[in-house]
């Protein structure tokens, strides 16, 4: 079951690479939240109940509902156009995301450790590098935040690989997730949206030598 969910998670990354509209991105992020809820539930079932509840609440409440809603709110409030304006065409984007997934697959094949489930590792690394790729290749500041959220989802998957024995690390990772997302989005919605009229990274090119 975990495998199916994680494969869906990786496919959702490819879908994100394909799509152009910001609404699709928020929808995919919400969908990933549901998938992570399922994976966390299966993987962490043996840890104590309050901890498990916290993790599940975070995936459903925060990743699936709060963040996508907040992103949509930011997009509407700042009147951001719905096009994500990638620097590269879709086809190349899909090729790159696929290359990333194959690369993580090959890297995880180098592991000779029977302790770790490789599929978690593959999904986590794919999400990490796909997120970095989104940050590099998209023009809007808000899509940078979305790329960061994809990275966070990857980190969550990775923390599940060790989480059953060390729930502390999962909790710290979740706190990082909440803290950084709220912080980034808070700065964005309060400041950048008010100060800059046109929200793409070209507005942030003044500091240089």
């Amino acid at each position, binding site marked *: 079951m975990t495998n199916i969910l994680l494969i869906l998670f990786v496919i959702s990354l490819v879908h994100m690479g394909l799509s152009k509209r910001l609404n699709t991105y928020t929808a995919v992020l919400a969908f990933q939240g549901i998938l992570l809820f399922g994976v966390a539930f299966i993987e962490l079932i043996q840890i104590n109940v309050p901890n498990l509840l916290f993790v599940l609440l975070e995936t459903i409440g925060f990743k699936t509902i709060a963040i996508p809603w907040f992103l949509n709110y930011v997009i509407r409030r700042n009147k951001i156009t719905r096009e994500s304006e990638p620097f590269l065409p879709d086809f190349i984007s899909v090729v790159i995301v696929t290359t990333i997934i194959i690369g993580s697959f090959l890297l995880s094949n*180098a*592991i*000779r*450790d029977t*302790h*770790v489930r490789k599929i978690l590792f593959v999904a*986590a690394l794919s999400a*990490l590098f796909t997120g*970095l790729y989104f*940050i590099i290749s998209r023009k809007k*500041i808000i899509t*940078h935040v979305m790329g*960061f959220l994809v*990275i*966070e989802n990857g*980190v969550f998957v*990775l*923390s599940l*690989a*060790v989480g059953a*024995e*060390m729930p*502390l*690390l999962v909790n*710290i*990772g979740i706190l*990082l997730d909440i*803290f*950084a997302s709220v*912080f*980034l989005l808070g*700065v*964005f919605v309060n*400041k*950048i949206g008010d*100060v*800059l009229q046109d929200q793409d990274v070209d*507005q*942030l090119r*003044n*500091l240089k*030598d």
Partner: protein
Amino acid sequence: MMGIYLTGAILIGSALFLNRHRGWNYLLVTAFVLLQWALTIHVWTHRDRTDLVYFTPDALAVLFLTTLSVISVPAFWHSYRYFASDKEIPRERSIYFAAMVVLLAALSAAYLSNHIAITWIFVELTTLSASALIYHRRNVRTLEGTWKYVFVCSISITLVFIGILLLTMGVQEAGFSDLSYTSLAARAGLFNTFWLKLAFLFIFTGFTVKAGLVPMYTAGIDAKDKAPSPAGALFSSVLIMVGFLGIFRVYAIISHTEIFPWAGRILFISGFLSVFVATVYMLRVKNFKRMFAYSSVEHIGLVTLGLAAGGVGYYAAILHIVLHSFAKSAMFFQVGQVYRIYKSKSIYDAGDYFRFNPAGAMVLLAGFFVITAMPPSGLFISEFLLFSALFAGGHFALLAAVLLLLTVIIWCFGKNIFKILFIKPVGFDEGSVESIPPVESLSQYVLLAGVVYLGFFPPGVFVNLINHAIGLLPK
């Protein structure tokens, strides 16, 4: 004591945030300085004794904490002068001081922590407080600097966390679960090197954002440029040290394994590229605050090279980073005064500084010799030891390249500093120049004198601390 310190810092920080009264603000800041020094003295008398489970002041932590406490005093004093000479908005002042208190407390806790996850939490806290300081002036430029800093730091801190997770996988495979530094170092031999290599790559890349090394140095440059200069002084001294500390701790764990030479090569590459990038930017930089920020990149690059070279290089690296912190914070305090006179950070707008502020001009002149490591600067000693370590290690080509780059840096530095000091500025209105009392330069003289003193006549206790700190690494 750690419990008292952290509770006190949180209370003082929130009181500063909530209270907008001028007198109360400065009273609370004074209380924090006293608390900071109380912790420092406590740590000196209770070395290597674990406090509150996760905090053990080992030699390196004691050394760094003392440096921080020394620099924090002039940092607060210059912040006071900064507000006295500029328009003082109560809300901005209280946020500024609250953020600075939180930053210093988080740094102290990160130095003292003996557990890799705890270090990570406090490093994350420094991002939050530092961004409040960068955004202090509340305009589009500072917003840009803040956004870049927050974003790059968030990604880097996530990379560190991934590194910790990968390390944990190795730990679990080796059959234990304790993530404190001593336990990790003691059982380093049991690790699967695959996990260790991946973990080192991620943790190193993540911490370079705080240390100001290639590849993540960029955000730090904008931060030091856009923050008020007392905050910039902290960013380029004590904040750099926390990044170095994070790298050093993991490097010390790796030093007990077979991948130690491999990790050394990573440090060589990053250190050399840092010096190279700093040189390239120093050649074309027109903003003197950014020039000093790039000089920090160069110095931390040298420190990394020393760490990678081994032997006497370890000693030189620790000595260099401590002395650099004193020297560079002095320069940033002085940059604040230069800015107050010319109302610009461009080298083209500044000039003839000796006429407007002789005491400050002497600081710039002396600081130029100290920061470029010419004798009698203490940095001369550390750089000399560092180069002899590179020589002894047989890295002749690297040594030659670094020396060449350093020569270029000295030339750029000299060109720009002497322009500010001696050449008349074009179209500068001398009527409205603010006169700056010489007493404001006092702290910089003390710090620069400290660099000379610690370099040439190091007290025995100082040498002992460094030797204990590098005792974690193999000879």
